[in-house]
């Protein structure tokens, strides 16, 4: 058990080391195969180990690697419980499919081996993150996924935009990390340990008081918002689309960006005693969901639509975990991983077939040219739009149901979620229509073609999961909820309504989805509107938030740095240093005439000094 569990993390690590050392020599497609086998191996091991837990017989396991930071009460220790099992399966499962896809997508790239080394590094980091048994190791994984995200966003660093996007992601994440680190410090100051069990048991037993609990929980939210691209730290994710499309699918849709949701769910015991912070999480989530959905309606770049869509869907998950519906949040995390990875890979397939064209206004009519891509993406489209019985319907409906059931002002959030569902259906339909239907609007010389098998097989598998993935947690059979319940023993899980209310809510949200789809089809059915009015431009530029950040933070930072460099440093620091120097020179100038160069004048000075001393001693009456 110990070895097997360790191997889940170690296999991708070994794959990474092999590829860093020999990636270039192994070449194509060998490097991709090595990486894919490593991750698939992890998945198989995780699946075998998970069978016990699935059957309800297994127990929570911990694997201690080595003593690490005794002062913090932590060791390098893995935790194998229901939540980390699920996350591991999603990460390695979706991960191996995307590795497979990448072999086709990255065909011919000069740094083929390096790409897969980075991918394996990411998988290793993400597994450390989800399998950690204490905050310190979780933080290690947290930072490592940030690193691999940076490396992969700027993988094509020859392009200035890609290099800039990588930097931006890194810097914005760092802002969130500050909140996370401070939260960890506060946790340590309260509990004297960073181990999960100590902290969560302590929080559950009332060792955490109101204000401190709220402070810790809000700081954790800052960290989660940075990693999961929530307001106001979402700006890095759309730019992250500069990375290769499989990276967008794996890291910036299916796995890494959900780390914030996972972290909030994991620390549910803390949010349980900080209801204000939990409500803040839900509000941030709902606001992000609606905000990003409006921007997604107006994007012309197919990947940017999906990026804003991801931000919006992550908002749903935050809304769920904020409402203490941790299972619903994790459930949506899982189904979203399926259909959003599928959408990204499909988009990658389209871009691949269109010779790197990403502007949807220059697509159209691709359904016949790329049948497999079209059909699989259509499934994902209906899934994310919340059409029953596809995966997205069950998870989204559960979130909306829980939020509605909590009553009071929470129902405002439900309204926001419902509006977002409508917008989601609208922009996804718009994307599908512009891409696959209507007249071809391709640039001359482009000959769209279906992608190779290596790329379409993962699409088909993910499409299958997008269809059936929701069935693990339907109102008729709450399998996932019962499975995850042991993890959330310490918290009061919010539940979805039952009976007629549930039916009505489901009908309403499906109706919202249908209205969204219908409106989009009506608008785009036979023409492409110009989409260049003031409102469109406002949305297309993301409410100019980026420009605002650039104007306030980037410019402010530059001005501050300029002041430090050309005022404080030049005048202050350098002034002090040069002041010491010129003072010394001036004093030296005064003393300089004493050095006459005549030995006998020195002799006279010595004699005078000796006589002076003698007189002084004698005047004191002896030595």
């Amino acid at each position, binding site marked *: 058990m110990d070895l097997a569990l360790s191997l889940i993390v170690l296999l991708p690590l070994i794959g990474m080391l092999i590829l860093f050392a020999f990636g270039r020599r192994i070449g194509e497609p060998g490097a991709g195969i090595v990486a894919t086998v490593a991750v698939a191996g992890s998945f198989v091991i995780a699946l075998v180990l998970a069978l016990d837990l699935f059957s309800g017989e297994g127990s929570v396991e911990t694997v201690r690697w080595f003593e690490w930071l005794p002062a913090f009460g932590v060791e390098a220790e893995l935790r194998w419980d229901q939540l980390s099992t699920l996350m591991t399966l999603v990460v390695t499962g979706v991960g191996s499919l995307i590795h497979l896809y990448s072999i086709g997508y990255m065909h011919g790239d000069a740094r083929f081996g390096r790409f897969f080394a980075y991918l394996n590094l990411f998988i290793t980091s993400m597994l450390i993150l989800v399998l950690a048994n204490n905050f310190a190791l979780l933080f290690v994984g947290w930072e490592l996924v940030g690193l691999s995200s940076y490396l992969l966003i700027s993988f094509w660093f020859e392009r200035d935009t890609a290099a800039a996007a990588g930097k931006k992601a890194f810097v914005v994440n760092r802002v969130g990390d500050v909140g996370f680190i401070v939260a960890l410090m506060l946790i340590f100051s309260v509990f004297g340990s960073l181990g999960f069990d100590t902290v969560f048991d302590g929080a559950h037993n009332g060792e955490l008081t109101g204000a401190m609990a709220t402070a810790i929980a809000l700081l954790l939210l800052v960290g989660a918002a940075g990693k999961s691209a929530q307001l106001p730290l979402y700006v890095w994710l759309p730019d992250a689309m500069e990375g290769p499309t499989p990276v967008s699918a794996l890291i910036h849709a299916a796995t890494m960006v959900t780390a914030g949701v996972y972290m909030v769910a994991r620390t549910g015991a803390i949010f349980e005693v900080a209801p204000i912070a939990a409500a803040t999480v839900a509000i941030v989530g709902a606001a992000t969901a609606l905000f990003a959905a409006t921007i997604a309606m107006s994007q012309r770049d197919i990947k940017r639509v999906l990026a804003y869509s991801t931000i919006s869907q992550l908002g749903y998950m935050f809304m769920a975990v904020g409402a203490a519906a941790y299972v619903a949040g994790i459930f949506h995390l899982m189904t979203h991983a399926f259909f959003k990875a599928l959408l990204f890979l499909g988009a990658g397939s389209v871009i691949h077939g269109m010779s790197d064209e990403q502007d949807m206004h220059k697509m159209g009519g691709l359904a016949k040219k790329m049948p497999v891509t079209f059909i699989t993406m259509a499934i994902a489209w209906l899934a994310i739009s919340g059409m029953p019985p596809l995966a997205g319907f069950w998870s989204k409906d559960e979130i909306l149901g829980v939020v509605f059931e909590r009553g009071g002002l929470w129902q405002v959030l439900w309204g926001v979620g419902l509006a977002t569902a409508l917008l989601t259906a609208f922009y996804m339909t718009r994307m599908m229509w512009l891409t696959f239907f209507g007249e071809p609007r391709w640039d001359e010389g482009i000959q769209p073609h279906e992608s190779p098998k290596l790329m379409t097989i993962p699409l088909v598998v993910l499409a299958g999961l997008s269809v059936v993935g929701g069935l693990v947690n339907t109102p008729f059979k709450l399998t996932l909820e019962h499975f995850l319940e042991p993890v959330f023993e310490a918290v009061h899980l919010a539940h979805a309504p039952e009976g007629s209310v549930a039916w009505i809510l489901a009908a309403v949200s499906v109706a919202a989805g249908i209205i969204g789809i219908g409106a989009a089809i009506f608008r785009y059915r036979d023409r492409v509107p110009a989409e260049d009015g003031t409102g469109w431009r406002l949305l297309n530029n993301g409410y100019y938030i980026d420009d605002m950040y650039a104007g306030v933070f980037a410019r402010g930072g530059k001005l501050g740095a300029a002041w430090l460099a050309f005022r404080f440093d030049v005048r202050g620091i350098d002034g002090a240093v040069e002041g010491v120097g010129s003072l010394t020179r001036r004093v030296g100038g005064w003393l300089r005439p004493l050095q006459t160069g005549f030995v*006998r004048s020195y*002799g006279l000075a010595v*004699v005078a000094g000796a006589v002076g001393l003698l007189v002084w001693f004698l005047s004191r009456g002896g030595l």
Partner: protein
Amino acid sequence: MTVTPGWYMALAAVLFVIGTGGILLRRNALVMFMSVELMLNAVNLTFVAAGRELNVLDGQVAVFFVMVVAAAEVVVGLAIIVAVFRRRQTASVDELSELRG
């Protein structure tokens, strides 16, 4: 008339003053060196006299140290003077004033 330690001290003082005068008044480096030796030996005389008076050996021990160090110093000093003289054809310290500040 007996010779008391006071006489030795007086003689040492006279020698020391002569040496000091030589240093301050003469320009030739060689002569200045001789004056320095005179001053050193004046001090040596006081050491020996005091040691004899107090009946301890420390005075004589100190003198040996002074003589050894003085010998070493003279070796270096004379070498410098000879070297300077070969280059400049003079040993006048007033003409060797390049180190003026």
